[in-house]
């Protein structure tokens, strides 16, 4: 139990995927302008992250490892993720248009979201069991959503701020991210 708890705290707060691992920066900067959008993106990423975590772990454990072809990891994983995203997108569009409206439009962005592939690779590197893989993926997804939601709250407020012309948009978002990650340093040493 303790171990799971550590994984959660570490993934959400201490080693936050965006603020300290630098994964998924593009959507973090791109889709954090509005709160609603960031919630949608967070949801979509969580969904894919967990599914991808499960699939890639299975493939690694039952195909790549037995055949000793670990070096195919990158190709295999990216294939899995790309196919998964596309599959999920199509399925969602057909069977749950409201869900698709809410999350679906964010799905294509996820293929090239390094967070998904990154977490999948970390899962394997840390030699987690299946249960831990699920918890780990989910916590990272939560950390991603947390950072995204906080960011969008701030950016909505910054919309009216008198920010120097050349700093508007991405530059100031990066500065906010810097200060956010500085605040998150407060969590270091926790657990």
């Amino acid at each position, binding site marked *: 139990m303790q171990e799971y708890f550590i994984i959660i705290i570490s993934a959400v707060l201490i080693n936050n995927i965006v603020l300290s691992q630098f994964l998924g920066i593009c959507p973090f900067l791109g889709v954090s302008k509005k709160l609603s959008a960031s919630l949608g993106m967070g949801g979509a990423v969580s969904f894919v992250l967990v599914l991808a975590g499960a699939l890639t772990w299975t493939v690694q454990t039952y195909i790549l490892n037995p055949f000793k072809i670990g070096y195919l990891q990158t190709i295999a994983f990216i294939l899995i993720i790309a196919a998964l995203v596309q599959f999920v997108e199509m399925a969602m569009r057909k069977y749950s248009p409201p869900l698709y409206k809410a999350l679906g439009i964010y799905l294509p962005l996820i293929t090239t979201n390094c967070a998904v*592939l990154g977490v999948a690779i970390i899962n394997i590197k840390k030699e987690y069991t299946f249960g831990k893989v699920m918890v780990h993926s989910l916590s990272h997804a939560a950390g991603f959503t947390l950072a995204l939601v906080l960011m969008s709250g701030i950016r909505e407020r910054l919309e009216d701020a008198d920010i120097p012309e050349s700093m508007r948009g991405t530059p100031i978002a990066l500065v906010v991210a810097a200060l956010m990650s500085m605040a998150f340093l407060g969590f270091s040493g926790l657990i």
Partner: protein
Amino acid sequence: MSLMSEFSKGIIKENPLLRLMLGCCPALAITTSVENGLGMGAAFTGVLIASNMAISAMRKIIPENVRIPVYVVIIASFVTMTDQLMHAFTPALYDSLGIFIPLIVVNCIILGRAEAFANKNPIIPAIIDAVGMGIGFTLALVLVSSFREVLGAGTFLGIQVLPESAPAILMILPPGGFITLGCLLGLMNKLQKKAA
């Protein structure tokens, strides 16, 4: 457009990191030292050149509607090769770059160049484009990492340049990455506005 301009556009006008803001993740993660920046840039440029070349060569035979998966597979293959090569020949660098080597696969710049340039142009321009873009990205990485290494560790390529007590460790921590890139982008915007 001449080949020269294909080459130079990637360095300044369409610099993938500083102008198009693509490939932010590695630019933030591995730029703690200039050495890492150079290593990452080299690995990235290699993959970009190889994949641009391959895609350009195969552009007539790749079916339109599955082209993206095909690109991904091609890129992933080259990334895997790079990964293996680095593991074998530059183990230290390999360790410090960590998972960001396999993550070159999902670097939007490579896929973007494949889609926007390589699949419409012959091999020679495609290579030139890749070299330009690769150098542009590498230069940007070096720029970011020089700031961070000098200010954060007091060294440049491992050579001590600031007194022992001076460096602000923050700069090589995650916040330093965000702040350097943010300020650099702001600076680029400012310069561009002045030029215009």
